[in-house]
C-alpha cells in the first residue's frame, strides 16, 4: 500500500519567490497535518486538516504561509515571498482520525537562497 507522498522532494528557490508543496495522504485518511523541521530540531506543528477544512492553523508562522485541501485528500502548502529562514524540511502526515497514529511522508527539503 502506498504511504504518504510529497512532491517535490527538493525545492530550491530565491528569496521573495512563491512556492507550493504538495502532499498526497494515505488513501482513506481523513486527517492531514503539516510539520516543519529545521536543522537540528524536531518537527514542529504547522496546521491540521479534518476533511477539507483547516481545523487548526495555529502553527503557521505568519500570513505568508497558507494551506488548502479542497477535496479532502491532496493538500498544498503555499509560501509567499519566501525568506531564507523558511529553509527547512516540510513534512506531511496523515491519520485515520485525529486521535490515531500519524504517518509521515518523506518531506520536501526547501532551500531559499
Amino acid at each position, binding site marked *: 500500500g502506498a504511504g504518504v507522498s510529497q512532491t517535490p522532494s527538493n525545492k530550491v528557490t530565491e528569496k521573495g519567490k512563491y512556492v507550493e508543496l504538495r502532499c498526497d495522504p494515505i488513501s482513506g485518511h481523513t486527517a492531514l497535518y503539516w*510539520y516543519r523541521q529545521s536543522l537540528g530540531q524536531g*518537527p514542529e506543528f504547522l496546521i491540521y486538516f479534518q476533511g477539507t477544512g483547516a481545523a*487548526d492553523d495555529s502553527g503557521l508562522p505568519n500570513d505568508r504561509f497558507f494551506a488548502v485541501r479542497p477535496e479532502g485528500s491532496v493538500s498544498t502548502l503555499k509560501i509567499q515571498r519566501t525568506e531564507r529562514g523558511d529553509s527547512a524540511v516540510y513534512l506531511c502526515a496523515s491519520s485515520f482520525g485525529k486521535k490515531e*497514529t500519524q504517518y509521515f511522508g518523506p518531506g520536501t527539503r526547501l532551500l531559499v537562497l
Partner: protein
Amino acid sequence: DQQVKQNSPSLSVQEGRISILNCDYTNSMFDYFLWYKKYPAEGPTFLISISSIKDKNEDGRFTVFLNKSAKHLSLHIVPSQPGDSAVYFCAASGLKLRGSNYKLTFGKGTLLTVNP
C-alpha cells in the same frame, strides 16, 4: 521553551547490547507518548507508543517505559542491531489539551549508532 526534551544528541552502542534512549517532558497535560525513527532523507516512521494509563509497552525488541511522576520516558532496544542506527524522536500529545489532542510535540532527537 522545550516541552519535550531529549538531552542526549547521540548514543553509540555495540551490536547485541541494549540501547536506552531517554526523553523528559514538562507539560503535565501530555498523556500520550510516541517514538518515531528517522533515517536520512526519509520521513519519521512510527515505532511504538504508550498511554499515560500504562507504565510499560512492549513490541518485539522495543519497550517504552513511562514514569509519570518524573515526567520521563525511555525507549529500550534489545538486542540492538546495525539497522537500528537512525535518529529517534520522542513525541507527546495530550487528550486533555482541549481541542488540540492531535498536535504532536517533538523532542530534538537522538542519533543512535549501533556498531557491528
